[in-house]
Structures are given as structure tokens and as C-alpha cells.
């Protein structure tokens, strides 16, 4: 044990200098208690931080963003009535959602299926807007994309039955999205109605199936995930 005359305090951990005022210490009777913490308790690199700089990711982000912006510039300078650079932007965004995002965020496959379906919908709606053709995207593409996504997740649930809980939530969300095309029917945005209605019907049937085949655990899982 040591003593600091300036501070008039005893110092119990092993120090040459007072931790309060850095003055030299004097010996005092009684043993010290060693170090307060391992390695002095402060010398540890925060290992989380060095890993957050992902060079490859940044290169791809830079290339795609610079490419899209270049297209926008060319598009504006040579504008002839078609906003084709929007199509490039939407396509790039889709690629990021479909390829880049799974690399960055390793979420479960249900999550990625859902994201891809949404990103693809956005792409096709933008494409339709750019090319100025009449309503094929909302009429056909969007409803069938959701049907495909719902089917895909049902398939994953069947295959990976042990981990169904992880996917059930995304299944439920795609089902909700699958009903949405009906909104465009009601709002009069589509001319061909049957695909949207089929999508909603398919969602309903899947939901029915989940409730019939799902057990109590499945229901409690939904309650947990959607409590508000």
C-alpha cells in the first residue's frame, strides 16, 4: 500500500505515481491489492471498429453510384424525351438489393426473398413509367412476383422444417404484400384485373394453410413478432 501526501489518500493498487495527481507515492504499511483490472484495464483495441471499413463494398458502392450519376448527366445533356437513366438507376438499385444486400446483411433467406420481390416490383413499375407503355407491370408483373415470392417461402418452410419460425414471419409479410395488388384494382390503376385478384386469393389460401398446418408455437411466434 502506498500513500500520496498531496492528495492525502492511500493508494491500494500497484502504482508508482498517484492516479489522481501523478505525484510520487510514499510507502505505507500493508500490502497492495495488485492491479484493479487485467492489462491495467484500459489497453484493449476495440476490435469491432477496424472491421467496419469494408474496401470491396466501398469500391462497388462508388462504381455503381458514379455510373448511375454519369448516366443521369448524359441523359440530361442529350435529352430526347426519354428518362432512360431512371431505368439504369432502378436496375442498379435492384442489383444491390438482389446481390449486394445479401452480402452485407446476412439475414435469413425469407428476408431476402421479400426484399428481392419488393425491389423487382419497384424496378418494373419504374421501367413501365420510363418506356411509357401501358400497364403491364401492375397488371401482370407485380401480382405474379408476389405469388412467386409466397410460393418460394412456402417451399423454404417445407424444406427447412426445423427452422420454420425464422421464415414464418416473412411468409406472413409476403402474404400481406400479396393482397396489396387488390388496392390497385380498387384504385383503378390496372386494366387487367384477374392477376391481382388471383394474387390476393393465393395469399389468402396460403394464410389458410399456415393456420391449419401451423401449431400453437406458430401462432405465438406471430404474436411475438407483431406485438405493438
Amino acid at each position: 500500500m502506498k500513500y500520496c501526501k498531496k492528495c492525502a489518500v492511500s493508494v491500494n493498487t500497484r502504482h508508482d505515481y498517484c492516479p489522481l495527481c501523478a505525484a510520487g507515492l510514499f510507502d505505507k504499511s500493508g500490502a497492495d491489492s495488485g492491479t484493479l483490472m487485467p492489462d491495467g484495464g484500459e489497453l484493449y483495441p476495440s476490435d469491432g471498429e477496424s472491421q467496419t471499413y469494408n474496401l470491396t463494398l466501398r469500391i462497388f458502392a462508388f462504381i455503381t453510384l458514379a455510373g448511375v450519376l454519369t448516366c443521369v448527366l448524359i441523359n440530361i445533356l442529350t435529352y430526347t424525351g426519354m428518362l432512360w437513366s431512371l431505368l439504369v438507376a432502378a436496375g442498379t438499385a435492384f442489383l444491390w438489393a438482389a446481390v449486394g444486400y445479401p452480402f452485407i446483411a446476412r439475414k435469413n433467406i425469407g428476408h431476402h426473398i421479400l426484399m428481392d420481390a419488393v425491389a423487382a416490383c419497384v424496378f418494373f413499375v419504374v421501367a413501365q413509367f420510363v418506356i411509357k407503355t401501358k400497364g403491364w407491370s401492375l397488371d401482370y408483373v407485380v401480382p405474379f412476383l408476389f405469388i412467386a415470392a409466397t410460393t418460394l417461402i412456402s417451399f423454404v418452410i417445407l424444406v427447412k422444417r426445423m427452422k420454420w419460425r425464422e421464415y414464418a414471419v416473412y411468409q406472413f409479410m409476403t402474404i400481406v404484400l400479396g393482397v396489396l395488388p387488390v388496392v390497385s384494382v380498387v384504385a383503378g390503376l390496372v386494366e387487367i384485373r384477374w392477376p391481382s385478384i388471383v394474387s390476393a386469393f393465393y395469399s389468402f389460401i396460403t394464410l389458410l394453410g399456415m393456420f391449419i398446418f401451423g401449431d400453437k408455437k406458430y401462432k405465438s411466434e406471430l404474436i411475438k413478432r407483431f406485438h405493438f
Partner: protein
Amino acid sequence: MSPEKKAHANDNRWFRLDNAAKIYPPIRSARRAGVFRVAAVLKAPVNPETLQKALNVTLSRFPSFNVRMRKGLFWYYFEHNPNGALVTPEKAPVCRPVDLRETKGYLFRVSYYGCRISLEIFHAIADGTGAMIFLKALVYNYLALSGAPVEADEEILDGQMSVAGGEVEDSFLKYYNENRKAGRAEETAYQMKGTRLPPGYVRITQGIIPVEPFKALAKEAGATLTEYMAALLILAVYESQLKGRGHKNPVKVSVPVNLRNFFPSGTLRNFSSYINVGLAFNGEEADFDAILSAVREQLRNDATKEKLIEKIGANVSAERSPFMRVTPLFMKNLALKTAYNLYGERLVTTTLSNLGVVGVPESMREHINRFEFLLGAPRRNTFSCAVCSFGGQVTVSFTRVVEETDIERFFFRYLAKKGLDVTIESNYGALL
């Protein structure tokens, strides 16, 4: 049936985050871990194998700790964690963020170093009182398993007693009165200047002081220990940075309040509020007695059932508002993070958390040297201060993230000058 009441079928058990817990996940980051520590220093070196066994036993008795955090569409929630928690050798820095891969999803860490058993815990799980109850049970089980003749009393939640529903309840909801809400407007506090340490570095200075003379000193000034220390911290800030110049913003100390002392509750989760006390300095000479009487008045004025109910009301009604409830989680996170960055820590200069006397059964006393309570590194503030007492000694622990030791030095020198016997322990500048 509310999820908290499902007593059996552990695997399906889940908990909503309690009202106070909800702020911690969104604001969590590498530099703001939201982690604090309670620790017990025993009289003999800790045996890791026995500690592991003790942790297994303890954890099965504490369902609200035996969880992992999951994301729902609207809120986070806790569900039973089947992985089993591991004890680890202590690794610096103190109160570093909980690494979920390292802890297998658990939101706390039990570690050992020398004679010390430390529980570092993410604030969303429990407050200081709840964490201390867990630690005491852990230490009890540890001592019992190492063959010490210890006997549990009502201070210890051991395996003999079944889990009471009240232990896992959100007591905020219980005492919430929707007609009584406090306003939130509050003045920004003075922020101390200082040379920041590199990220990940934390410096701890602990002062161990005999409790009786310390209490007598406070009593002589007509104050409680907490009031006395809060005033002394404000004086320390003034003396080290505001002497002769003052500042338009007041120096404010956030003093957490254990709501269990005001409302009957046996919850082990969060049930605390805080009172921010302080005053502005205009450049004129300040004296301790004036600061103390201001602090005392504010604390006594605000630490009343009525005032605290209003504080609970403000927080719970914000959480339960229909708009907040249906906002998806990622948007809530963004909003809460922004709000916390704008207000949160800016409203206080520092925090002084006093856990009070740690009570253990007589049979355990002879095996325990002391208990410690440490707050994690603050982000915008430069230091925090945490206090608890045991066995006739008060342990005052400063956690700082700046080079300068001004506050601790002033604080402990002041007490030493008043005739108290102060013993310092520190991780800073220690010889290895």
C-alpha cells in the same frame, strides 16, 4: 393472458421490453454501450468452474435475464435463450458493448478477475437494483457450491423460492396514470471540456471510504450521502472549469431514483427514474453550502410520489401512443436515436448513481470484501460516478473517458481534507 404471466413452458416465454428499456437498443453503439457493472470482490480468488456452475443455477432462477433479444415488426422483444451463458476471464475495457456472438445472445457478461466476480449487463435487461439482486444470488450460489456454510434469507433469490410474477413485470405500466404527465422541456447542461481518450479506453478511479464518518460529515451539513456527493460533484466541475467565468448553461447531475422505494414493486427489470439537479454559475465565487442547499431542495422537491408518477406518465404515454405503436421498428429506432442525440446526454453534465447499502445474509459477509458498482463510459459527458456501500465502506467509482483527473482529484482530496480516510484504486497508470 399477458406474456409475463405464462409461468411454465419456459421455451415459449417472451417479454416485451419494459418502458425504460426501450431506449437502450436504438441508441446502442460501439461508443455508447448502455452497459453497467455490478461486482463482488470476494476474499479468495474466484474458481471459474464453480462460478460456471453457480451461473447455470442462478440463470434458471431468473427468467428475465435468461433471454436473447429479437426484432419484431414494431418492437424488440426478449425470448428464452436456450444456449446457456458462459463465464469468461475479465477482459478490458470495462463495460464494453455486449458482443452477442461472444455471449451467445445473452445481454450480460459474467466475468472473473482475481477475487472479483463481475456482472456487466445491458441496461435493457435490468436496472442497478435488479442486476445487484442477480449478482447476490450468483455470489450466494458460488459460495454455496464452493462449500461455504452460507444460508439464504429474503435478500437472496435462490432456487428454493419459485419465480414470482412480480419479478418480471413492467412496473411502469402498473403505476402509469394517463392523466398525469410531466412536461419534457429541460435546459441543456454544461458539458465539460477535456482531452478525449482513444475509442475503447476507459479509466476507472475508485475511492473506498469508511461509511460512518462519511455519513456523519453529510449529516453535519444537513444532507444525505447522495445529496452531499451530488453537490460535491457540482463543486468539482465548478472548481476545475468554471471558476471565475461561469457559463450560461447550468451544471447538472442526473441522479437515478429507485422507484421501488416509492411504489411497491418486486420487479427485477427496470424500475427507476432520475432527477436532474444543478445550478448555473455566473462567474461569482461559489461555495459548497449554497450548492448543497440548492441540490437538497431540488432533490427533496422532486423525489416525491406525485412528481415521479408524472415522469412515468410522460414516458409511458409516449410509448403507448397509437402513432408510436404502429410505427415500424426501424423508423422508431431512427427517431429515438435522433431524439437521444439531440437531448439525452446533453441535458446533464454527469450522472451520480447511488445503489445504497448492499444487504446480504450474515453468513455471506465474512466471504465478501466489498461490492462495486460502475457505470459505462458516457458518450458526450466526460465522466460518470457510481456508488454503493457494503460492510462499513462506501465505494465511489468514477468512469472517465478523458485524460484529465480533475474531478476525481478534487472530489477525493476534498473528502480527505475533511478528515476521511480515502483509499484509491485505479486502472490508470497501474504497474503490471
